[in-house]
């Protein structure tokens, strides 16, 4: 609805106002006339009409509000499904325009395409809400003042513009796959939105290996949706997941896409991540996982995408391929990283390896630290339960811990990626 309205206003703030006005009108209109057959189409149509009115008023005296009426002629006020999809894609390309800095591109898309609140976007970036609000305002101002156009780039431009879009779609998925805050671990609204966006991009760019890789990654991760959270909402480790509950249609489709994407050299980051997910998907059970293959793919991934969290995942994979001591040593090599020092999964991985080696005290300390670092209620509950095993003396040394579930589960790449972007920008 916002996307359809932005097409008219060319200004995100103005569009938001129109959408809010449309809701206000619905309150009075629907009370008198009853709820329309298609409430969302009603709202969209009203919002767009308000936007057109607003545009006619503005265009005469305010040239700062850009492109208000450029292609309104011949544009129907009807909004069918295809139209809405196109609008969303246009909005994505506007939000992901290279004239905006990369963080702003991601922030705008999360806020305006996916409808996250400013606070949720701020959490994904690990910055304060006020700072995120200021960033969004600056970005919207740049769109309006420099007249960043609202259209899907032409075929020649498209490959260059697609990278940022993939980045953003992946981030939307990971934000939904492990919600950074709140009481539920997964936000299906966001994961489905990301899948829909990835499929749309696949239709637009059927030849693009990066798109194929990202779609594969989303499918293979989302295939575990029904197995990774219990009905009560708590986390199920990969080890304990009922593989029958995995979505085998998604897996089949995802593996096909990975194979296709891997024929393009060099493989992209998303393709490699999807390849790791594919190794898990093809393993009949956790114990039969080809960890050597997974470490080998991580070796490539660390090279393609040198981020602290990829290095962390590689260390955990080594722990499974070569034993907990090797894993712990690989983790210790990363101990100087300032980001990992505040990262829940680094501590929970340490805790797990210590626990498997029978180092009760170190395991206890690491679980406690990990607990202090998470904001997600489900993760908190999981870590508390781990910690309780130590306090009640029921500690076990068998393979267990957040790291198994985590290390292959690219969801936790989210905050690091954001950090990585920020870091790399500060150093250039």
């Amino acid at each position, binding site marked *: 609805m916002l996307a359809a309205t932005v097409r008219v206003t060319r200004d995100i703030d103005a569009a938001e106002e129109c959408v809010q006005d449309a809701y206000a009108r619905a309150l009075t209109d629907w009370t008198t006339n009853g709820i329309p057959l298609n409430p969302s189409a009603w709202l969209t149509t009203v919002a767009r009409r308000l936007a057109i009115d607003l545009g006619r008023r503005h265009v005469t005296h305010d040239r700062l509000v850009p492109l208000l009426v450029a292609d309104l002629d011949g544009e129907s006020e009807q909004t069918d499904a295809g139209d809405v999809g196109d609008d969303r894609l246009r909005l994505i390309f506007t939000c992901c*325009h290279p*004239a905006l800095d990369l963080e702003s591109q991601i922030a705008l898309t999360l806020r305006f395409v996916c409808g996250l609140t400013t606070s949720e976007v701020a959490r994904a970036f690990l910055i304060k809400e006020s700072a995120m609000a200021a960033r969004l305002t600056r970005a919207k101002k740049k769109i309006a003042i420099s007249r960043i*156009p609202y259209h899907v*780039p032409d075929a020649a431009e498209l490959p260059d513009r697609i990278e940022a879009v993939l980045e953003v779609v992946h981030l939307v998925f990971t934000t939904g796959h492990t919600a950074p805050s709140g009481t539920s671990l997964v936000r299906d609204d966001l994961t489905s939105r990301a899948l829909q966006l990835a499929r749309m991009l696949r239709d637009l760019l059927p030849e693009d290996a990066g798109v194929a890789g990202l779609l594969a990654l989303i499918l293979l991760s989302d295939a575990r949706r029904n197995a990774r959270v219990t009905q009560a909402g708590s986390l199920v480790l990969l080890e304990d997941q009922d593989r029958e509950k995995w979505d085998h249609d998604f897996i089949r489709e995802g593996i096909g896409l990975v194979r296709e994407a891997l024929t393009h050299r060099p493989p992209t980051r998303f393709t490699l991540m999807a390849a790791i997910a594919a190794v898990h998907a093809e393993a009949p059970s956790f114990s039969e996982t080809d960890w050597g293959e997974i470490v080998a793919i991580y070796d490539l991934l660390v090279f393609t995408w040198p981020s602290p969290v990829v290095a962390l995942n590689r260390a955990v994979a080594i722990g499974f391929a070569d034993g907990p001591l090797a894993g712990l040593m690989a983790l210790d090599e990363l101990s100087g990283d300032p980001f990992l020092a505040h990262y829940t999964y680094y501590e929970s991985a340490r805790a797990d390896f210590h626990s498997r080696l029978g180092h009760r005290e170190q395991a206890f300390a690491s679980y406690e630290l990990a607990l202090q670092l998470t904001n997600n209620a489900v993760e908190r509950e999981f870590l508390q339960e781990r910690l309780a095993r130590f306090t009640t003396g029921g500690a076990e040394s068998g393979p267990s811990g957040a790291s198994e579930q985590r290390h292959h589960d690219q969801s936790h790449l989210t905050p690091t990626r954001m950090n990585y972007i920020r870091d790399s920008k500060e150093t250039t």
Partner: protein
Amino acid sequence: MSEYLILIYQDESDPAWADPDTGPQLMKEHMAFGEKHGASLRGGNALHLTNSATSLRHDKSGKVTVTDGAFAETKEALGGYYLIEAADLDEALAIARDVPAPTGGVEVRPIMPT
């Protein structure tokens, strides 16, 4: 349509300037640019080198200090500009891409409407 200023930055100390062919070659490139984008051009000029520049700086008390040289002492200095008209930023960037700037680059700034 909007107006954009394309600011051309160049490295005045680049050894390319010592080559007698550089000037005429650059002139040819600007002519070609002018022919290609004549319809969008609203103005433009080359500037003398920064050693001809005089800067005026206002301090907080309102006093003005006049100094020799360009305002910002950076490697790349403003060397010329084009004033163009374009439908949107993508169109402006497409034009800016064609501006010859062998020792630097260009910056595109929307003009504030009056």
